[in-house]
């Protein structure tokens, strides 16, 4: 099926998310849509999928204009979508999720579960997806969940498959598998629209590349284009893809964790006997696929959860039983994994968010009263220093872009003298320009002698920052390696291979 988009425009109030987009997807091609977060890729796809109504322009399928009232219409027309955040019901089985919306029944509305299972098995076999129709979604790994999403789209007879940032949650091995699946789908005639901001993937699998910036198509490129060229098209200026830094062997251990074990509220052992140390003036990167215990480990270091066993020492002092306030006061800087959840208060202004963990100090308060002038002065200073793009210091943080929200969090955490910096996913959902800036600031903090602990699921980030890399898998640190370890080997470790196998 040939998909043609002509002059598609979407406005939200005065904001134009998509401006006169033209795009042609030929049958059986993998068309990459490259752009930064917030460039308008998702808006465009949501219009294609019937979730949003275009303000102007039209979508043609095999030359015939379409008018989608909802996702049901798009599905019926042969457009399937795998969303960035999976659209799967966690307490349903694979088969139930696949049949949802177009259930086969035995009459009288009674579900025909056997037919659904059979369909899942057939599609799973045909495209080598290895999915068990009776598994509960909440019990299977994200990589498999994604394949369930693909089966869901294929079960609806999708001729055009939209993959929205499909690699964000996968291990390098799973990414390779996904690319294999994409090639297989292409060979069987399905067109794929592959949305990403990762240049490596685009070059590996794309037939055609369209770059979007600020809601507009800024150009197309063949997959042979260099990463630097693509990055420049995407950001609008040349960017340094790697932070220049010298690897260092750190000094004395500043933060030492011994035999940390954490049991989550559901009774699962999520961190298992983890020990490591971070030395002053080095960056320890913790690599691993999302959900292997990193979140809980980091929270236990700050005192947001109490470890069920083990000891955390800061410069030799036991802080295992400290709460977050004490830990922050001891000189730990903390950039949380999900900034909107525990990084800032969205409805508070930039000015207020910049002193969220400092307002108690003499600098910003006198008794019960806040020193508002000092807080404003601080805000002006930080906004300039960290290049936070906000209209005024009074603007609520929720209305800033993701990159600038993250800069607010970073600026706040960096405005105290730190012994240890713990940053989890420091650049998630942040544009390329801001990534560059945030990385430079982290390295500068390291060079001042701070012990830095970075948790990231992005290998690029781990490589860019780390002096040593610890790999977490299934609640354990399975290996600690140097940053010149090849990517494939790190990928194997992240997937649970034991060190001997990988060596």
């Amino acid at each position: 099926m040939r998909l043609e988009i002509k002059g598609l425009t979407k406005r939200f109030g005065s904001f134009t998310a998509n401006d006169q987009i033209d795009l042609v997807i030929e049958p059986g091609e993998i068309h990459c849509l490259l752009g930064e977060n917030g460039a308008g890729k998702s808006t465009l796809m949501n219009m294609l999928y019937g979730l949003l109504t275009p303000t102007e322009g039209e979508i043609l399928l095999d030359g015939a204009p379409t008018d989608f009232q909802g996702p049901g219409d798009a599905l019926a027309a042969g457009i399937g979508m795998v969303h960035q955040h999976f659209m799967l019901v966690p307490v349903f089985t694979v088969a139930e999720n696949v049949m949802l919306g177009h259930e086969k029944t035995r009459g009288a509305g009674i579900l025909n579960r056997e037919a659904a299972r059979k369909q899942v098995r057939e599609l799973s076999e045909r495209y080598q997806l290895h999915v068990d129709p009776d598994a509960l979604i909440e019990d299977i790994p994200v990589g498999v969940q994604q394949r369930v999403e693909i089966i869901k789209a294929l079960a609806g007879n999708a001729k055009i498959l939209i993959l929205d940032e499909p690699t964000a949650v996968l291990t390098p091995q799973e990414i390779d598998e996904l690319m294999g699946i994409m090639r297989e789908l292409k060979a069987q005639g399905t067109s794929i629209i592959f949305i990403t901001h990762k240049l490596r993937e685009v070059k590996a699998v794309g037939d055609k590349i369209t770059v979007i910036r600020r809601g507009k198509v800024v150009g197309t490129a063949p997959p042979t284009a260099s990463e630097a060229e693509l990055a420049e098209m995407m950001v609008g200026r040349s960017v340094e893809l790697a932070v220049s830094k010298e690897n260092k062997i750190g000094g004395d251990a500043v933060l030492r964790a011994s035999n940390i074990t954490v049991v989550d509220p559901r009774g699962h052992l999520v961190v298992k006997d983890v020990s490591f140390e971070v030395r002053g003036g080095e960056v320890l990167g913790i690599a691993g696929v999302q959900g292997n215990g990193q979140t809980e480990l980091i929270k236990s270091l700050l005192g947001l959860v109490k470890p069920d066993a083990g000891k955390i020492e800061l410069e030799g002092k036991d802080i295992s039983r400290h709460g977050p306030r004490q830990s922050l006061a001891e000189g730990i800087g903390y950039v949380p994994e999900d900034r909107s959840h525990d990084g800032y208060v969205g409805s508070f202004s930039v000015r207020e968010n910049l002193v969220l963990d400092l307002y108690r100090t003499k600098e910003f308060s006198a008794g019960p009263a806040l020193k508002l002038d000092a807080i404003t002065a601080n805000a002006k200073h930080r906004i300039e220093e960290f290049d936070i793009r906000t209209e005024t210091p009074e603007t609520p943080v929720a209305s800033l872009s993701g990159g600038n929200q993250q800069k607010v969090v970073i600026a706040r955490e960096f405005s105290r003298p730190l012994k240890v910096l713990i940053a989890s996913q420091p650049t998630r959902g942040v544009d390329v320009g801001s990534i560059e800036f945030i990385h430079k600031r982290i390295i500068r903090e390291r060079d001042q002698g701070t012990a830095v602990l970075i948790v990231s699921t992005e290998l690029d980030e781990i490589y860019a920052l780390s002096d040593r890399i610890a790999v977490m898998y299934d609640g354990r640190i399975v290996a600690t390696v140097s940053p010149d370890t090849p990517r494939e080997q790190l990928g194997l470790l992240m997937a649970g291979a034991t060190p001997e196998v990988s060596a």
Partner: protein
Amino acid sequence: MTDVLTPPAATAPEPSEPQVRDRADVRRQVKLLMVLGIVLLAEIWFKLKIDDPQVSHLFKGPRTLENQPVEFSGTPISWTAVAITVVALLLAALNRYPRRVGGVVLSVLVGLGFYGAFLMWAYADPSGAFAPAITSPIPGTIRIATAIVFGALAGVLCERAGVVNIAIEGQFIAGAFFGSVFSSFAVANIAAIPIFWCPVFGMLGGILAGVGVAALLAFFALRYHVDQVVVGVVLVAFGYGITSFLLGQIPSDQKATLNNPQLLETVEIPVLHKIPYIGEPLFGQNLLVYVMYLSVPLVWVLLFQTRWGLRVRSVGEHPKAADTVGINVNRTRWQAVLLGGVFAGLGGASFTLNTGAFDKEMTAGFGFIALAAVIMGRWHPVGAAFAALLFGFLQNLKDQLGILGDKVPGDLLSALPYLATIIAVAGFIGRVRPPAADGQPYIKSD
């Protein structure tokens, strides 16, 4: 060659799991020990307080000259209860208390033992000249539980679709009022309806009222995204207010034709009602009770075996996922809430069609107990129905013990079902997981 700085247990075959006993598990054991300890102490106290263990029971039919209560000694029952509890306590102390089905069976046994020991104490040594006999708890339990089961089914349907329904009490009171009015009106004014079917007409009135309140809930919650708990509470107050007001508007000379409902007649189910002990109380009931029996499996089939049910549960768990496969989230929620209204209305109608004229605030918080049954039954129609039966049982126990005089303080007795509700919801059920999107309005961007 890679520089592996710290190869962790490189030669060890498989790292062993660190031995940390889960805190939730420890809490469970401590809780069990405390509860069983209290139960055991109470049972021993009950036994020691009995001077003369002779009690009597009357399980078949009313007391007549031929049908006299049978005397028996309560001692074996008291000691059996103590023995069961001791076994359970030992198992808990050794952390060998069974889980899943075994645990439920043992807990039920302990509960039955406690009930027995308590009854022996309560009925032994009568304070007055007249010695009341122990009678079957089943008929009263069923009668009281009917409304609660219907209410709980309404709650399950709504909450599975992601709409919190605090308004069950409001649906009850409206259903009770219109059940009475419809039944009375049919008797007095519609000659075409045979007298047996007049209360059925009343049931229809209850359904309309329940669906009406449900429609208000859906309208505010789904269309205007008003906080569902707030809407629910407001609808309860509204239900109380409007029915009191309408009751006051009935002229005194019209009372006989508008608030004098024909009651539901007892219909004995052939064969089944002849089963000894349980046949008569279970199958010698009225139509509404049989509708209740059928409604529980019906709702189960609807929710878990049909296309509609799959969709309802999907919009209650992950509405966006449902939307992306073309399911109309709000329409599905509307359907579930309105269908819930049918059941809640029937539950309301049972108040007047079982007992007589409508009186203001006669539903006495049973709608909230139904809500507790939803939670205790883990949002499952069958579980909720059993929880509702438990509350009905306790309410009935209160009624039965009321005639015993001053042995059990009356005020404490009337608080019993509510006390049990709090304990059940707060502690006993452990961790329960509501539908993920329960109470969250689904707002589509355009």
